[in-house]
């Protein structure tokens, strides 16, 4: 990032770096435990409210959003990640504080029973809660996995407005100390992250704010859809790097930064929440696709370097990084040094095979540690680097439809986050 010479880059990157620096200053980055769990509501009796609110984007513009939230909490985008268990009767009670009817559908669930009296009406796809009304849905998930829920009332408008969320079904025999995504050892994992992808066309939100959904009739915004913001877990880059529940993003509680250690198995739960297909490219290594739409596929699993995420579909994949067969020692060991856990022994002690270019010819990334080796931090010229706390290897995970890596024309941003392979011993929460 060349601040002196190119005004465009300076403006955008400076904002980017500033937000991250703010995050470091707050100390929210510090680890607490050894494993990351997905943030959400756990249980089988969920009480949600659909209501409106405003989210403020990194480019300074705000967007009027409709979202689900816990009845005792904020409206949020996306809605709470609901975590229930296979075979468990699960009930969701929805209070509608929106100015229009709304509802919920749960693809992948069979026999969803809707219940409601006064304040409800039968909509086209689901029993709807009228403004001020309450409706409840119950079902018993038969198979574990990653699902999503969203509005069944004019979903072309209401999903765009923000009424969607992830639904995670733990297997019946779930053991938090030895977690598996399904009842299958091939689905065991050490770390677990959700990546719910979505997009927004702010023109639609403006019309709905002023005129309601009916204001869209006759406009071509739904058929000539022009998103300007692209989200992971309801945040755009670089907000995706921030931890869960930072106070200044009260309607966007979920972060999307993934962290793991070499050799660990990371479960990626990738959800297509919006209306477009997104190619989710995870730098660093291939991932093995173990399930689609909550249906286990370990017997026919395959590896990809980009996860094709279709609207309304989910993919579970296992990602692991070891650095094996790089042809040099990723830790920068001398031959006599001890092996790290998970290290690929044949490369141990091998030097990096090229001379790295002189510093004056290089541009440095904010997440560059100053050194090519895992766990090593070295000083960089003043003002460079500084966002890499532990010498972890940072990999960008992002939409490879690269036009989605902007926030309303300002790059970088959009549908991107980082995955950090932290050195062993660095705690991960």
């Amino acid at each position, binding site marked *: 990032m060349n601040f002196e010479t190119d005004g465009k880059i300076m403006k955008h990157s400076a904002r980017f770096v500033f937000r991250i620096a703010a995050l470091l200053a707050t100390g929210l980055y510090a680890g607490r435990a050894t494993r990351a769990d997905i943030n959400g509501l756990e249980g089988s009796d969920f009480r949600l409210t659909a209501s409106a609110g405003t989210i403020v984007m990194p480019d300074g513009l705000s967007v009027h959003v409709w979202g689900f939230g816990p009845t005792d909490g904020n409206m949020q985008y996306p809605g709470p990640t609901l975590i229930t268990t296979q075979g468990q009767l699960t009930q969701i009670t929805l209070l509608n504080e929106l100015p229009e009817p709304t509802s919920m559908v749960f693809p992948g669930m069979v026999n969803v029973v809707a219940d409601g009296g006064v304040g409800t009406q039968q909509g*086209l796809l689901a029993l709807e809660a009228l403004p001020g009304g309450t409706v409840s849905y119950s079902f018993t998930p038969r198979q574990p996995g990653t699902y999503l829920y969203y509005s069944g009332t*004019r979903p072309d408008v209401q999903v765009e407005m923000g009424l969607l969320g992830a639904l995670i079904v733990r297997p019946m025999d779930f053991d938090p100390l030895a977690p598996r995504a399904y009842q299958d050892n091939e689905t065991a994992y050490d770390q677990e992250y959700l990546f719910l992808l979505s997009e927004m066309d702010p023109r639609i939100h403006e019309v709905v704010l002023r005129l309601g959904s009916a204001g869209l009739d*006759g*406009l071509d*915004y739904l058929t000539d859809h022009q998103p300007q913001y692209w989200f992971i877990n309801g945040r755009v880059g670089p907000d995706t790097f921030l931890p869960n529940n930072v106070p200044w993003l009260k309607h966007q509680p979920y972060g999307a930064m993934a962290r793991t250690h070499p050799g660990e198995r990371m479960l990626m739960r990738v959800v297509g929440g919006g209306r477009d297909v997104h190619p989710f490219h995870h730098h660093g290594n291939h991932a093995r696709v173990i399930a689609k739409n909550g*249906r286990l596929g370990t017997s026919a699993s395959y590896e990809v370097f980009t996860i094709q995420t279709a*609207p*309304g*579909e989910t993919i579970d994949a296992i990602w692991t990084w070891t650095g094996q067969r790089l042809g040099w020692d990723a830790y920068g060991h001398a031959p006599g040094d001890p092996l790290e856990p998970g290290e690929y022994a044949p490369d141990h002690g091998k030097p990096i095979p090229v001379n790295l270019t002189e510093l004056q010819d290089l541009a440095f990334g904010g997440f560059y540690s100053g050194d090519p080796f895992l766990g090593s931090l070295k000083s960089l010229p003043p003002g460079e680097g500084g966002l890499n706390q532990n010498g972890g290897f940072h990999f960008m995970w992002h939409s490879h439809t690269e036009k989605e890596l902007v926030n309303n024309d300002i790059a970088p941003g959009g549908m991107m986050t980082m995955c950090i392979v932290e050195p062993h011993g660095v705690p991960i929460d």
Partner: protein
Amino acid sequence: MKTPKRIAAFAILLATASASSSFAQTDVFLVAKEFTQTMPDGVQIVMWGYALDADGDLLTDDGEAASSPGPQIVVPPGEALLRIHIRNDLPADTSLIIPGQTTTLSPVMFTDASGRERVSSFTTVVAPGATATYTWNDVRNGSFMYQSGTHVAVQIQMGLFGSMTKEFEPGRAYRQPTPFHVGEASVFYSEIDPDLHAAVAGGTYGTPAYPNTLDYRPRYFLVNGEPFSAGVADISLGAVGESSLVRFFNAGLETHVPTALGMDMLIVAEDGNLLPTNRSSYSVFLPAGKTKDVLIQPEMPGRHALVDRSMALSNNNGPDGGMLVFLSADIPQELSEAQNKLDTWSKRVFKAKAKLTIAFAMPEATPAEQRAKARAVETWRSRLETARSRLSRAMNRLVQMQEDLDS
């Protein structure tokens, strides 16, 4: 699904087959013609489509109604030959191809202003007013689309497509291990950009006013030739527990993702090719020009929405339309009752659990309170026990019925 249209196609084909029963063959007589279709909002769209030539002579226009998609062509199992005889009543050259079916193609090329050759038709054309026969000698089983092979960017969008299907054997779409099916239905997606249709109909296509299809913007999204609107017929899947083959086609220019609410589908084939493994899924990824076959064994009776999750759910930018259709399944009475029991008892278990939790939280400072609490706990504990045992009985019964149905 047994729509009248399909029966008509079948009847013609059977008649033809029996008329020449000395050797196996399938002859279909189509007329490509312009017609006008009224959209749910009253807008009239000039379409190009296919009509079955009723008397099979292709000589005169007997006023047959064209449609888009065109008539369903069903080649009987075991039949290798398909001949489509066509008369072109359109104002432009046209042709017929079936992607995925083998035949000799004779592309029509033209030389552009820079001296480069370009293809205008993937195979031999039939000129306006003329007739031609397109032949396939080795028809594979599966689900395919027949379509125009000429100026495809325009002619497919104008409506020149239809389904061509063939079973492996009666009641089975593909070889083993594909199971037999009882019911059969088609879900045929297509799109309409009214501006493009108006440009073609008004003769401005290819002029600076509407130079080409690059700015294609569909505003109608159709299932089996109509956008959703109130009163559109459901697609019947037969009874609960019965397996139905549902063939998906996408003649649109964009990817769609038909998504079933409340039922799983077993995806068995793509472009007429059996997949290496069968995958159960609530949705089908359906890119432009793709066909996919699924088997559905409905577990629950009633209407299940099949919505396009890529959100093509409006009619000319009006609400509640587009690529939406309902799949309906009937239920054996006995099963329905068992299901209701299951629902009732699972709700009662839920309620009793909640009440018991409340009972446990009741105060017990005074003897009266202690007695009240003990009573409440006792009551709800026993009700929970009852509900649980009834639930488990209902579940066993349902499982037994499902197994009976499956076998």
